[in-house]
């Protein structure tokens, strides 16, 4: 029973992190139609910029606030000077371009901060432990479990109750029509890419107290985020949430029940979903 509870918490905290990365990826895909390979690098950039901010101000909270905003600036430059030029081209150009951005960002980070390991400390208030089911459990993990739904909820409210959110949804539904009724679609694209960047970078900053920072840290997480997005349904917001939690929990319980098979779990999940529901859990047929 204790094991069950602890594995549930472990799975949820990992799943929430995956959700933050995947929701940015899926939103950018849903609106811009671009599958952003560099999303993982923006996650990595968020972690490094959070670390750098913390070195200046010695506060995790400022790192969490300022780091991702700096990453957004980078994201805006990428969108304005690179991505914008390939929106009308074949999807393979977009894949190649975002892959190039991934390589450039990874090497840029390597040049600035070196290829060694860096660590980020959680804030004092979250660095303790609480007793859960007779075992010590880190407070920071509980914080992750809470922050995921908070950010997710705010996003959902933004898309459903604000004018801007509705405009973005309209543009993603039919961008030609949206342009026809006077919506500035290029501006929408830029803001959505900035939002996606921010989500990835916040994910990175939140992951930083949990895992060591290296330039390639984004490459690991992007694969699982892609799986989450495909499982949940490309472009689906609730799909990203459910997919991330599903994957997080399966991986966590897999360590107990599946042994070495645990490694294959994300791919088995992906294969099963593609066979049973080729459009993912939450996407209506095309």
């Amino acid at each position, binding site marked *: 029973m*204790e*094991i069950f509870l*602890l*594995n549930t918490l*472990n*799975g949820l*905290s*990992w799943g929430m992190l995956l959700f933050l990365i995947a929701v940015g990826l899926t939103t950018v895909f849903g609106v811009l139609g671009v599958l952003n390979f560099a999303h993982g690098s923006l996650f990595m950039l968020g972690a490094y910029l959070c670390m750098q901010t913390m070195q200046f101000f010695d506060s995790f909270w400022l790192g969490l606030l300022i780091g991702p905003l700096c990453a957004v600036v980078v994201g805006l430059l990428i969108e304005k000077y690179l991505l914008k030029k390939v929106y009308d081209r074949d999807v393979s150009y977009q894949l190649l371009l975002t892959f190039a951005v991934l390589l450039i960002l990874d090497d840029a980070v*390597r040049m600035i901060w*070196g*290829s*060694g*390991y*860096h*660590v980020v*400390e959680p804030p004092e208030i979250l*660095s303790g*432990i609480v007793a859960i089911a007779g*075992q*010590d*459990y*880190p407070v*920071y*993990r509980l914080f992750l479990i809470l922050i995921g739904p908070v950010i997710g909820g705010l996003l959902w409210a933004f898309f459903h109750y604000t004018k801007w959110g509705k405009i973005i949804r309209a543009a993603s539904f039919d961008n030609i029509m949206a342009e026809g009724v006077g919506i500035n679609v290029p501006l929408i694209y830029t803001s959505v890419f900035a939002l996606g960047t921010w989500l990835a970078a916040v994910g990175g900053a939140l*992951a930083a107290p*949990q*895992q*060591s920072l*290296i*330039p*390639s*840290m984004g*490459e*690991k*997480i992007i694969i699982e985020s892609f799986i989450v997005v495909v499982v949940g349904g490309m472009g689906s917001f609730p799909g990203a949430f459910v997919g991330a939690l599903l994957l997080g929990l399966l*991986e*966590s*319980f897999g*360590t*107990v029940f599946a*042994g*070495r098979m*645990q*490694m294959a779990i994300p791919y088995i999940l992906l294969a099963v979903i593609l066979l049973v529901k080729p459009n993912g859990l939450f996407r209506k047929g095309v």
Partner: protein
Amino acid sequence: MKRRALSVLLAVAFVAVSVLAANAATKIGFTYIMSGPFSAYGQFAKQGAELAIDEINAAGGINGQQVEGFFEDSTGKADVALRAIRKLVYQDKVDMLIGLDSSGVAKTVVPSIEQMKTPLIITHAATPDVTGSVCNKYTFRISVNIAQNIKAAALLAQETGAKKWTTVGPDYAFGHQSWEYFEKYLSKLNPEATFMAKDQVAFPPFKTTDFSAYITKVMSSKPDGVVISLWGGNLIDFIRQASSMGFFDADFEVLFTLGAATEVLTALGDKMPEGLWVGTRYWFLANDSAMNKKFAADYVKKYGAYPSYNAHGAYSAVYAYKAAVEKAGSTDKDKVAMALEGLKLEIPTGMIEFRKEDHQAITDAHWGKTAADPAYKHRILKPIKIFKGVDVTPPVAETGCSM
């Protein structure tokens, strides 16, 4: 007109060739992981190698020849590493090969070394197989291998008196072999020791960044001792998450087989718990020799960091090559390979000998307990435990090597 141009060209070419011949440098080809998640390891090795090359060239080279280093990226993949080594041998025409980080890469590459007829000194990859089942005439290893490192771990484990053992290790050959050897050695030393079954031990995949499920699993299996062979970023993540989950306050012994790696200790700083047993292939404070002090001081001066085991391995291998060439009196590849056999030399970690029968260096294995020291920003080892090479190196008969 055409003819004259041709003869000028020939003359120029002749002069160029003779100049080159006069200055002919001895070439060493290095293959390490220079990109991707483990590029830091390649960088350490390159730094160590360049320090040795600079020192040797400043002192007049090897047998009067300057040394030139060629560096290739193995990316940690066997096929890429093999291609890189072929390029070094056939295109750059190196006289000597040094390198290899990953055991998986080493095991694939080593059988092909024989066809290339170029001596190779392995400085990092630790699988016993390359000086065991797939050993050959041209392949040597200067660094501590799994068997030596784990034999020392088993001797320590016996001292702790803990009976019921489990493991956390990366889910590839290295993690599994570490556990296998630990079981093999400790069961001989302490017949009462028991080892948890396959479904109870933890082998997180290499890409794992969240170790909580594994930490929970090990803690709830209530062992007396845990031997942990995680390394690099995996080890850093594991230690931080384990500390926050009370792993180190629990009532069991913990042995980290590669815990005393400088890159790990530097990254963790004062977040590395004190009083943990950690092993390594080289510890910059373990040997009081003048050579070691000079190496560590020069390295710090040049690169601003303490030398890691990978820097030490590459540095020492260049000097081993120098010693072999001087012993052979030539850079001829076959003669150098012959000279390396049974070669004894002093390197920063101490005296070593390339055992004639399997080409594994008989070298000391270092362990110690993590301790704080105001002179260092990171944990150091206090006390340091040095296991003599002869005590931890398995006898030739056990290696499975036949040349």
